Every structure is written in structure tokens, then in C-alpha cells.
């Protein structure tokens, strides 16, 4: 039997598979389909300090081997999460990750503070959110803007802190290094790619916000490259993601250096895909005589 255990910093995952934020709600819905405690972890829907209704208009659009979304961080707010969702979330036997977004630096800080004493195992800080003060450019584009968020959030929490990087960053390697320098326990990448679709008959962008986030198999080759680059250049553990759909994909990300891998969009292809990926990783390990994922992590 292969051992799928991984250690991400000090946190033990029973296997490397984590469900990506925003694609798995708070786990409840998928738990009606299968026992989600077979997963390594779940990253919650992105939480902001205050509840948000999300974006108007079309929120999803299919692209070749991908999809764009413009949910706009609809969520019940951190307090709403604590009151209504944590009840279910907290009892799960898996690594419980609260994904936190923000609109201002203060939103991040207050949001994380509220989570400090809650029964969660890790915070994933989504810095792809538009920075209200900086005219809407996301926090995760410029290294020095990101540095400030990471530093300030690090200062207010002892929870394991993983920074979720945007593939739209100007310099993703430098960005990951900034996170490491500021004391993050790890980084996760990639978030969605800024993308566009036009309805040529209406002569309008498909999305009210004009741009939206691209995810799914289409982006996998770029995401894998970014994960490889980051893993080569930081010493903190990495959660790789972006289009992972098969065990083969997951193993590529692990060989590129990921400790955990996250699966998002693929859940929409097949709601039980998480289990299939875990089984597939195990089958590969058995076939190849691999006892622990440490043997293949970051081998290239």
C-alpha cells in the first residue's frame, strides 16, 4: 500500500488533494455525493470581512477546455461563515482551510483576526482581489503591494498562513519570494487568469465586469510552469493547481515540486473526480514502487 500522507509545513494531510476555493463551497454539497473526508483538505469559498452579493449578469462562460467565472466573491462574510457554515466545516476530518479575500488591507486584517480562534487549520490568503485603494488593481500583481498585505496579515495570526498567488502577477517568482520573506508558511498557485469573452451578436463583453477569471484544463501547462518556477525558488511548501483533472496532472504538479495539489474546475466535469485522482495517484505509486510522495516531489 502506498502512503499518500504529506506534510505541508507542520500540517499533516492524509493525502495531497485539496479542493480549491470557490469550487467546492464549504464542502456540504459534495458531502451529499460522497464522503469528503477522504480528501486531504478543503479550501472554503473565499470569505471577505463583510458578506458580498457577488457580481451581476452572466457569471460563467465555457471556453475551449476551460471556463471563465465572474462570481465576484459572493460569500456570507467571515461572521456569516462562523455562524452558519463552520458548524459543519469544523467537524470534518480533513485539513480545513479558510480562504480569505479582501477589498482593502484592513478587510484582510479584520477578516483574519475574526478567524483566529476558530476551529480551522489554515488560512489561504487570496491576494488576487482588487485593491480598492489602488484603483482596482489586484493586490497580487506587484510584489511590494503584496508584501504589505502578507506582512500585516502575518502579524495578526498564528494560524498556518498560505498565500494564494495570482498568475497575473508581474513576477510570480519574486512574489513567492516576498511571501517567504514575510513569513508565510506556504504559497498556493495559481488563481484564475484574467481573461475576456465577447458576445459578438450583442457587441458586448459577456461579463459585466468585462474581464473574468479563466480556469480548467486549458491553463494547466502555464500553471504547471509557474508552479515549477516557484518551487525552484522558494523553500516554503507549495500547493500547486490550475486545470488539474487527472491523476497524471496531479503527479506532474507533484514532480514539479508541489506538496499539495488543489482541484477546482474539474469538480464540474465529474463531482467525484477528487476520489478518482486520489485513487489514480495511489495506483501510480504502487505501479512505480513509490512508497512516499517525497520520492518524486520536485525531482525536476
Amino acid at each position, binding site marked *: 500500500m502506498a502512503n499518500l500522507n504529506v506534510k505541508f509545513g507542520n500540517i499533516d494531510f492524509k493525502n495531497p488533494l485539496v479542493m480549491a476555493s470557490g469550487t467546492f463551497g464549504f464542502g456540504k454539497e459534495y458531502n451529499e455525493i460522497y464522503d469528503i473526508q477522504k480528501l486531504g483538505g478543503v479550501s472554503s469559498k473565499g470569505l471577505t470581512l463583510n458578506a458580498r452579493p457577488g457580481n451581476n449578469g452572466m457569471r*460563467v462562460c465555457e471556453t475551449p477546455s476551460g471556463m471563465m467565472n465572474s462570481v465576484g466573491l459572493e460569500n456570507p462574510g467571515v461572521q456569516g461563515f462562523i455562524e452558519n457554515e463552520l458548524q459543519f466545516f469544523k467537524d470534518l476530518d480533513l485539513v480545513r482551510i479558510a480562504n480569505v479575500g479582501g477589498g482593502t488591507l484592513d478587510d484582510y486584517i479584520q477578516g483574519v483576526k475574526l478567524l483566529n480562534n476558530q476551529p480551522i487549520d489554515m488560512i489561504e490568503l487570496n491576494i488576487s482581489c482588487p485593491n480598492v485603494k489602488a484603483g482596482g488593481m489586484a493586490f497580487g500583481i506587484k510584489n511590494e503591494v503584496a508584501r504589505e498585505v502578507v506582512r500585516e496579515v502575518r502579524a495578526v495570526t498564528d494560524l498556518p498562513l498560505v498565500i494564494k498567488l495570482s498568475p497575473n502577477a508581474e513576477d510570480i517568482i519574486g512574489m513567492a519570494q516576498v511571501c517567504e520573506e514575510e513569513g508565510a508558511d506556504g504559497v498556493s498557485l495559481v488563481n484564475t487568469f484574467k481573461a475576456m469573452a465577447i458576445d459578438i451578436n450583442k457587441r458586448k463583453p459577456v461579463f459585466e465586469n468585462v474581464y473574468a477569471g479563466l480556469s480548467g484544463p486549458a491553463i494547466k501547462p502555464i500553471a504547471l510552469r509557474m508552479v515549477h518556477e516557484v518551487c525552484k525558488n522558494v523553500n516554503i511548501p507549495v500547493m500547486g493547481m490550475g486545470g488539474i483533472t487527472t491523476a497524471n496532472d496531479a503527479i506532474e504538479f507533484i514532480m514539479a515540486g508541489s506538496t499539495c495539489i488543489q482541484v477546482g474546475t474539474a469538480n*464540474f466535469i465529474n463531482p467525484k473526480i477528487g476520489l478518482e485522482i486520489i485513487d489514480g495517484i495511489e495506483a501510480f505509486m504502487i505501479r512505480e514502487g513509490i512508497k512516499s510522495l517525497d520520492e518524486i516531489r520536485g525531482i525536476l
Partner: protein
Amino acid sequence: MYKVLENRYVGEDMYLMKVEGKFEGEMGQFYMLRAWDMFPLLSRPISIHDIDENSITFLYKVFGEGTQILSRVKENETIKLEGPYGNGYEKVEGKVALVGGGIGVAPLYLVAKNIENCDAYLGFRNEAILEDEYKALCNEVHIATGNTFVTDILDVEKYDYILTCGPTPMMEKLVKMVEGTNTKIMVSLENHMACGVGACLVCTCKTAFGNKKTCKDGPVFWGEDVIFNG
């Protein structure tokens, strides 16, 4: 993977697909269908048209790539189904009208099977489809085609309940028509979906009670609660 027992053209660009298996599902619920592996990415939400001990039936209209692929599936080939998902029509009692426009007639067949003594008002672009099938289940079946719309031939006040599915403007109009009457209406909303189970929030619709998930809280809502153009 389930075996397709039948997949036949019934007119108005619509196909009837019967799939073998023991399926669950209530009137107004839907399944996520895919007759392909990885491409296109997303599965397609299709309402339950009919269900029995050994099979489930869908009525779908060829619209874009996904439904086109569905239409090419042959007998004995397989498709993938996930479901049943969503919140369907409530089993109301009283005088009930089922109002379907176009492919919106699809879920109303199972409704007609579950609700006794209902009347059906079905609107089509050109020709009526499955008229006999609905006649077998309903008291009266009224058909509107061409320039006549179902909303023209229906006196809402005759009914305690209207259960409808069809183009949004039609449903919106019906909701307006019942305003100020004693008639209650249930509408089935259509929204683009990804997960289908309530986890991704791409299908949010606006209601008097705030944002709701079309796939999980709906697709069927009380008409008065829905904020159209939301």
C-alpha cells in the same frame, strides 16, 4: 455511464432521450448530462421529462454544441448522468394549469403525471409536439403556435396554481398576470451552471429573500419571490 435506450427526433429541434437505469427524481428536478469525455468542459442541465422503474427520459432541444452532441448519441451508446439535483415543483392541490413554452414543456410531463386533473397550455414556435402524450395525462390541453402565445389563451384566474417553465419573458409575464389575483405561480428558472450542486455560485438568481442558487434552491421558485432582471 448509462445506456441510451432511445434518442429520437420529435419535432421543433427537440429530441426525446430514454436512458436505462433506476433513477430517482421529482418533478422539476434536473440531471447534469454529458455524452462526451472532456470536451466541452461542462455538463448540461436537463430537466427530468419522465421517469419510471427502469428508465429516465429527457426532452431536449438542440441549441449549441452540447445538445448537438447529445442528439447524435445512438441507441445502445452510453451517456453520463449526475443527479437528481435541485428543488422541483411542489405537489399542490386545487385547480392547476401547467404552462410550457417551447422546450419548457419538458419538465411539465412529469408534473402532469404527478398532479391530477390539471390543464396544460403549451406554446410552440411552429408545430405542437407530444400533444397526445400530454392529452393522456391532462384534462385539457391547449396549444398555441405561431403568433399566438400561451399567455394569450390562458385565463389565470380560473386556476389556483400555475406551474410554468419556458422563456423568461413568458414566465415574467405570467407572474405579472397573477399579481393581484388569488392564483399562485411556480416558475422554473434557467441559468448557466457549472457544478449543478450549489457549490460554485455561478448560477445565482435574485429573489425577495436575497441571492439564491438556481441549481440548489431552484430551479423552481414561487413566482412572487423571483426578481426578474435581477
